[in-house]
């Protein structure tokens, strides 16, 4: 651009010099008027220095005005220069031909000076607007390309939040798992996750955020992070989902939500508990091809409403069984005619699927969905997570016992009897069985005697699990929140007459176990104790 504002250049083309003089006389005050007396000359001038506008006579010797216009419009460098036909011809068919060739306007001679001035001015203004629009479009396109670039980066970041290295736990012989996520757009709302909680348990998560694009991806990232954080130190899917739902709902101005399936699975015993918040029910694929749909639902989608209490259910995988989790991108995949893939097709596939490992399983399902879709545009993210139970443990040496009793001292004897039978059957060392009895007696006595304002109508859950390396006891009651392990240690150096007994039971429990845990989960006190089955406890 030049600093000095120059007059716009108008090229007038006419084989009659008098006509050129007339035009010059009208426009010279506001425009630089160049003149050409035939078509060839006009094209040469345009090629050298394109004018801002061309006034073109039609009937000329040599190239006609139509031919000149045609050539100008065919050349990308000159096609945007507005052309106004200026001619004595009056038939409407000629006018139409002129517009058909891309002319901007059509003025008949004799020229009316104010009309010519006005038309030239209008078309120059239009041309300027067009130029500005094109410049703006260029900027927008550049911005759009940059956004696209950033979306691609977003996709990379989103995928990097999901564990993608497989085999994920090469040292674990107890199970095999595989997951895949095929996004419908660059960034989507689906996600999966899996992580070990300790040496026995793994947390499995599959979720689907409402909506697509960047908002869904951000909500997904927040949900996934919250779940992972909440799952540390919380063994209850119901409690995790309840807490994350509260956090998501509390600050959710966009009213997004997420469907979620979350399971915590003991990979030694195969026992798992799960919570389903509005998600597609997963399947257990048995080693023999039998299929169980885990259709228990424990509440609505997460993020919709604060203060909801979610429930949980339990299940068990045997060696060779698979837990198959997915999002609705699988069952709602459409073929070119808009037909859905559907549950029935999925179930049929799972019944005969390759169960040799988790990867063949996820691959078989994705392959089936893709073949069904036949290249139809993918309407939703597709996420699949498969967990295959390999070994349920060293035969005979692992087992578990679950009991639920009324909160009544008279029921303790029954628990101790069953625990003793369990210890015998699991071939636990005598000393370990004795300790287990003592510990259960202390915990239940404490809970029933001091844990409730009125114990009647309350229940206590007891879970005992033994594997080759440790015995785990878990006692859960819905009593007053209380962590017994925060009690002060009683003074055991006092003489008989100074002795009080309070707190002694808890101290014995603490001293005779290798690990003690207390959690307040879903309104329950949960005490978890571990005794290592090493030489010291034989």
């Amino acid at each position, binding site marked *: 651009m030049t600093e000095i504002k120059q007059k716009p250049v108008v090229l007038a083309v006419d084989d009659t010099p008098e006509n050129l003089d007339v035009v010059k006389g009208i426009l010279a005050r506001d425009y630089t008027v160049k003149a050409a007396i035939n078509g060839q000359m006009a094209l040469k001038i345009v090629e050298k220095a394109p004018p801002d506008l061309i006034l073109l006579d039609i009937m000329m010797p040599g190239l006609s005005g139509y031919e000149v216009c045609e050539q100008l419009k065919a050349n990308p460098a000159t096609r945007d220069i507005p052309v106004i036909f200026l001619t004595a011809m009056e038939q409407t068919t000629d006018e139409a031909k002129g517009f058909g060739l891309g002319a901007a306007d059509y003025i008949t001679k004799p020229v009316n000076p104010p009309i010519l001035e006005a038309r030239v001015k209008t078309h120059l203004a239009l041309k300027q607007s067009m130029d500005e629009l094109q410049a703006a479009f260029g900027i927008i396109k550049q911005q759009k390309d940059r956004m696209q670039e950033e979306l691609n980066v977003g996709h990379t970041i989103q995928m990097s939040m999901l564990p993608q290295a497989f085999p994920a736990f090469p040292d674990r012989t107890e199970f095999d798992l595989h997951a895949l996520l095929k996004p419908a757009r660059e960034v989507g709302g689906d996600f999966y996750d899996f992580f070990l909680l300790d040496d026995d348990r793994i947390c499995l998560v599959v979720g689907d955020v409402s909506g697509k694009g960047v908002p869904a991806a951000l909500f997904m990232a927040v949900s996934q992070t919250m779940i992972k954080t909440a799952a540390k130190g919380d063994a209850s899917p119901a409690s995790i989902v309840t807490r994350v739902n509260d956090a998501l709902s509390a600050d959710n101005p966009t009213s997004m939500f997420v469907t979620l399936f979350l399971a915590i699975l003991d990979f030694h015993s195969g026992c798992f508990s799960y919570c389903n918040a509005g998600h597609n029910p997963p399947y257990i694929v048995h080693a023999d091809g039998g299929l169980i749909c885990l259709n228990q639902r424990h509440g609505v989608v997460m993020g919709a409403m604060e203060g909801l209490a979610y429930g949980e259910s339990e299940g068990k995988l045997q060696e060779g069984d698979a837990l198959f989790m997915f999002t609705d991108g699988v069952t709602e995949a459409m073929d070119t005619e808009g037909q859905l893939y559907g549950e029935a097709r999925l179930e049929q596939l799972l019944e005969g699927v390759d169960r040799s490992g988790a990867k063949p399983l996820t691959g078989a399902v994705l392959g089936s969905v893709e073949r069904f879709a036949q290249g139809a545009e993918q309407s939703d993210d597709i996420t699949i997570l498969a967990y295959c139970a390999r070994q349920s443990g060293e035969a005979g040496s692992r087992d578990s016992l679950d009991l639920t009793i009324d909160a009544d*001292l*008279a029921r*303790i*004897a029954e628990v*101790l009897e069953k625990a*003793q039978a369990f210890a015998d059957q699991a071939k636990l060392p005598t*000393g370990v069985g*004795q*300790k287990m*009895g*003592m510990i259960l*007696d*202390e915990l*239940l*006595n404490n809970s029933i005697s001091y844990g409730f304002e009125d114990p009647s109508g309350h229940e206590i859950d007891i879970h005992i699990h033994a594997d080759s390396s440790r015995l785990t006891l878990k006692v859960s009651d819905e009593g007053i929140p209380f962590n017994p392990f925060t009690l002060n240690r009683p003074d*055991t*150096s*006092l*003489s*008989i*007459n100074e*002795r009080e*007994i309070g707190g*002694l*039971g808890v*101290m*014995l429990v603490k*001293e*005779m176990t290798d690990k003690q845990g207390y959690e307040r989960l879903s309104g329950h006190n949960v005490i978890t104790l571990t005794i290592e089955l090493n030489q010291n406890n034989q």
Partner: protein
Amino acid sequence: MKIDISESGDVRVLAFEGNLDTSTSPEAETRINELIDGGASKLLINFTQLNFIASSGLRVLLATAKKLGPAGGTLGICGLNPTVQEVFDISGFGTILNVFETEDEALSAF
């Protein structure tokens, strides 16, 4: 829970079998108190057949020792299995009660 009571000279020997815990301690305390109320002042509790003892059982032993002491009586305990021994060690009861390995050893100490 089974308590077998016999006499060895002026010592009453109580042989416990099973667990001394929340469910069984009240009965054990009743039986012991019956003996003390009946004039017995030397008690030997034999734990050879005892599976485990919980804090409620310790409470009975403590109450018994407190009852016998001022009256010039004696409480002896013998036959602790490793688990019971561990409870005695942790709680300090091994140092405040008279603990013996065998019944014979205990009886000769009365």
